[in-house]
């Protein structure tokens, strides 16, 4: 295993972390199940590829533009989610994934089944950045995304999203406009999925519709669930674990997928709240109790001193 190989794996893991965190805004916080997240990953990748190749944008300009476009289309799904709910929505998002991939695959504008080739590495100060610095760039955006999620979880909007997840009727009766917050959640989540797409496109330098199909969406959902929905550490560690898993299982060669599937079954069956979620075995072992209890105890102790 050379250093170059590790950098490549590291970049993929970083992109998966961004994708999982962004899905977590929609599913973990706002409680809207989306099984088509790869579509927005793809929208980000295609937008950036086309903007840099056909419109002459630089990477740094294409990046926010792609995020905005993915966010806007995501808001459209948010509007659909107002009408189609629960499991109907989950299946609809599968459909959206298929339709968007079909658009990529069957229109010449998006390069058809062969995708888009010749996407450039980003330039910094007139120089093409190296693979290692690209990894650093991805890492930087992972931190940005995680920090954004942290801010959400501490803000009023995060609270509003959580109440929608828990009970929409009660949230409305508490004066929260569920429609608005659902759309915001989808827009934010999909914009960050778009960010993941931009980073993917400029790293791979060629993209095909196949990179953004439904199984990719399912992988992202699985990473989130295995890690622990609704937290920040859960999606990060879940993505890290599940993205590294196929590499770790490499010695098993022919039996890789068998073990991969088996581990997903095993982990969801015995740690349904996620390996690093609220009541997870690992967290309990590390902290002696679940995190919330640990924090509230500390708060109370602090309060008594004052």
């Amino acid at each position: 295993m050379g250093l170059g190989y590790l950098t490549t794996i590291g970049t993929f893991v970083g992109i998966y972390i961004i994708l999982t965190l962004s899905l977590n805004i929609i599913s973990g916080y706002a409680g809207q199940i989306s099984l088509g997240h790869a579509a927005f990953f793809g929208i980000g990748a295609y937008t950036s590829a086309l903007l840099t190749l056909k419109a002459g944008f630089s990477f740094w300009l294409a990046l926010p533009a792609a995020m905005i476009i993915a966010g806007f289309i995501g808001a459209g799904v948010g509007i659909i989610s107002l009408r189609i709910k629960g499991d109907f929505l989950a299946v609809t998002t599968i459909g959206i994934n298929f339709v968007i991939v079909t658009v990529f695959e069957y229109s010449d504008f998006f390069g058809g089944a062969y995708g888009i080739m010749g996407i450039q590495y980003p330039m910094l100060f007139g120089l093409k950045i190296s693979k290692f610095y690209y990894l650093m760039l991805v890492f930087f955006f992972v931190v940005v995304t995680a920090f954004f999620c942290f801010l959400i979880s501490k803000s009023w909007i995060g609270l509003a999203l959580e109440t929608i997840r828990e009970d929409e009727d009660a949230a409305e009766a508490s004066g929260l406009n569920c429609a608005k917050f659902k759309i915001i959640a989808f827009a934010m989540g999909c914009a960050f999925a778009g960010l993941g797409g931009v980073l993917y496109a400029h790293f791979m330098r060629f993209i095909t519709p196949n990179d953004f199909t439904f199984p990719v969406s399912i992988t992202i959902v699985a990473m989130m669930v295995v890690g622990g929905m609704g937290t920040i550490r859960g999606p990060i560690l879940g993505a890290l674990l599940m993205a590294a898993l196929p590499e770790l299982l490499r010695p098993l060669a022919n039996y890789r997928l068998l073990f991969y599937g088996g581990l997903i079954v095993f982990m969801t069956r015995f740690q349904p709240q996620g390996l690093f979620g609220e009541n997870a075995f690992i967290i309990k072992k590390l902290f002696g109790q679940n995190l919330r209890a640990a924090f509230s105890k500390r708060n109370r102790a602090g309060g008594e001193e004052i």
Partner: protein
Amino acid sequence: MTPILRIEDLSKSFGGVKALKTVSLDVGHNEILGLIGPNGAGKTTLFNCVCGVFPPESGRVLLKNKDITRQPTHRIAHLGIGRTFQIVKPFKNLSLERNILASLCKDRTKGLSPIMFGTGLKKHRQEVLRLLNLVGLEEYIDQTPMTLPLGHQKRMEISRALALHPKLLMLDEPFAGLSQEDITPLLQVIKNLRSEGLSILLIEHNIPYVMELCDRLVVLNFGEVLCEGTCEDVQSDSRVIEAYLGS
């Protein structure tokens, strides 16, 4: 003096079944109005029409002379109607603090401001404690509703509604399913709220508590107002006895 809530000729039907037929009633200042009637009389439907959960077919709802008919539910909550649910709907996995904070969101999520971060939810802990204190739950502030008995959950819902600073509180069967030790504090909470000047519309089946709390009663039957008046008047009305016992 204009009433807090005036309902004028409200009608609503579900697939041909008339759930409400031109119902009119007033809730006065600092009054507890009891809404009683047999099951299926349309009491909860009336609540839901007032709160904008579904729109009425005709009629008007006025809150302090302001027409609020067909406004979305969250707007109506902002305008000053707090409600509880027949089957409690707490935010199950959130602490009591966050449950109450949800109702304090209203001024802070307008326009672009939800995107402003770090607006310090923690600063409002004192306000949350005050609101929980009104219903006697301040010691449970860090617990989740699921760890509390039903009576506490119902009081938490009242506290959550109070966080909206409502002009009118609407309680849907607050005593249903409670044991005696939960009922006594709840009665006290409702009495305290009235003495602080709040108007309350109350659906309840437990007639003794209705008699103890309410200033006036409205009896609904088959979606129509059967009669209306003080507790004594209603109690002696032969039509009410007939509606409850069947003729």
